[in-house]
């Protein structure tokens, strides 16, 4: 069947059998090999991509469900050759062998879109579906925190003075909504893990 979708911001039309895995459609048909396969059963998260903004295991998504969707892969993170703050942060030990890195980046990206100042426990929960065998996750968690910090600082520098103040408060208290456009559009920071836990 013919599938129309946006991949990394570019409209694509792909001819593929409907039950081909999104992973294979990306890697083989579109030759976007940055997305990796580690287990093929949704356990390791190496194949994580964003499907309409949400992290999913592309090994569990049939191509037919990509119809009309917007997909972001690791290749879509850097803009005009410039690494994103998250990618930049992973240069310092977050990526060792690198095979889990694309999936890890996509899961972390999804988190940072919703929560600009995640605490360590929240980061660990957001990455729980991405296995890494090299790092013990320490430098990965650090990288996500660092990227959040850099992004907040950049956002604060861009905003007019009044909003800057709010961003500063958020940093101190950690309770304000993150000063990010996307975060404002989406759910509050507490939606990751905590909100639902309130009994």
């Amino acid at each position: 069947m013919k599938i129309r979708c946006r991949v990394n911001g570019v409209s694509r039309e792909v001819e593929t059998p409907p039950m081909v895995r999104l992973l294979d459609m990306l890697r083989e048909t579109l030759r976007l090999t940055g997305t990796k396969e580690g287990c093929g059963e949704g356990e390791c998260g190496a194949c994580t991509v964003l499907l309409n903004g949400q992290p999913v295991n592309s090994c569990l998504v049939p191509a037919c469900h990509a119809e009309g969707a917007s997909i972001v892969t690791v290749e879509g993170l850097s803009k005009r050759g410039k690494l994103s703050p998250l990618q930049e942060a992973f240069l310092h030990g977050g990526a060792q062998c690198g095979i889990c890195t694309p999936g890890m980046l996509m899961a972390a990206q999804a988190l940072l879109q919703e929560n600009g100042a995640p605490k360590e426990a929240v980061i660990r929960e957001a990455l729980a579906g991405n296995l890494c065998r090299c790092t013990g996750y320490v430098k990965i968690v650090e990288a996500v925190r660092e990227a959040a910090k850099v992004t907040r600082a950049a956002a604060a520098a861009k905003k007019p003075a009044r909003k800057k103040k709010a961003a500063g408060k958020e940093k101190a208290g950690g309770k304000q909504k993150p000063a990010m456009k996307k975060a404002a559009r989406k759910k509050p920071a507490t939606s990751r893990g905590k909100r639902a836990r309130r009994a």
Partner: protein
Amino acid sequence: MEICDFALHRPASLAEACEMGRMLGPGARFLAGGTELLPDLKQRRDVTRHLVDLRSVPGLRDIRLDSSYLHIGCLATLSEVAESSDVHKTLPALSEAILSMAAYQIRNRGTLGGNFCGGVPSADTPPICIAAGAQVRLAGVDGERTLPAEQFFLGPRKTVLDPGELLAEVLIPVQPARSGSSYQRFALRRATALAVVGVAARVALEKGRITQARVAMSAVAPVPMLAAECSGILEGQSPVEEVFERAAKAAALASRAISDLRGSAGYRRDLVRVLTLRALREAAARAGTRPA
């Protein structure tokens, strides 16, 4: 079976979906999120040739609360259920069960309907729904039927669904006043591991007595099961440790656990007792604090 050989069907209505399912017979499966189906196809546990994609059917993804029921459409993703304010209002323990069972990537794709229809004995959402007195609404070629959720499962990967019949929605009754629920699971690691045992409990209190109690379990029988014995032991009693202990022992006795990779039958029975106790304590504590 070749991935390329599948025929994909996109019905426009529930009735059409059922009709397709019936016509295509046992070689067809309904496609929801795909998180169960794709690994099955990969490991060739399945002889499917036709897939009926339910996503083209309108309305199956809705979550809504009316005066008597919380309706969760079969296509609502686990994330949508876990984050729904109506779910939080009605049965927060369902949300907790979902958050404990899988990572974001799976929650964003997997559906409540899929978690039920997979018929996996260790599935985490059925017990909490069963404990809450949930019903399932099934839609078929010859009309609809509604069953208590515990009657939906027949065995591992087997449900009551006839060819052409599908689970349209899960109906969770508005919970009684002064009631509380809890889902306790034990897995071999902190995240994204299948449950060794899961126990759900719902307790309603009135004047210091338990008026209603239901305990349901996963991974300890061929199907998610209701430990009916527990209700008899608990109802009419005070919510005290000694009563919970008796119910927990009864639950352990009622379980029909087998030994597998995750644990032996004996260990599972021990866990049923421990987790039932914890679930009852938490449910009762919540019932006590829940506004009437």
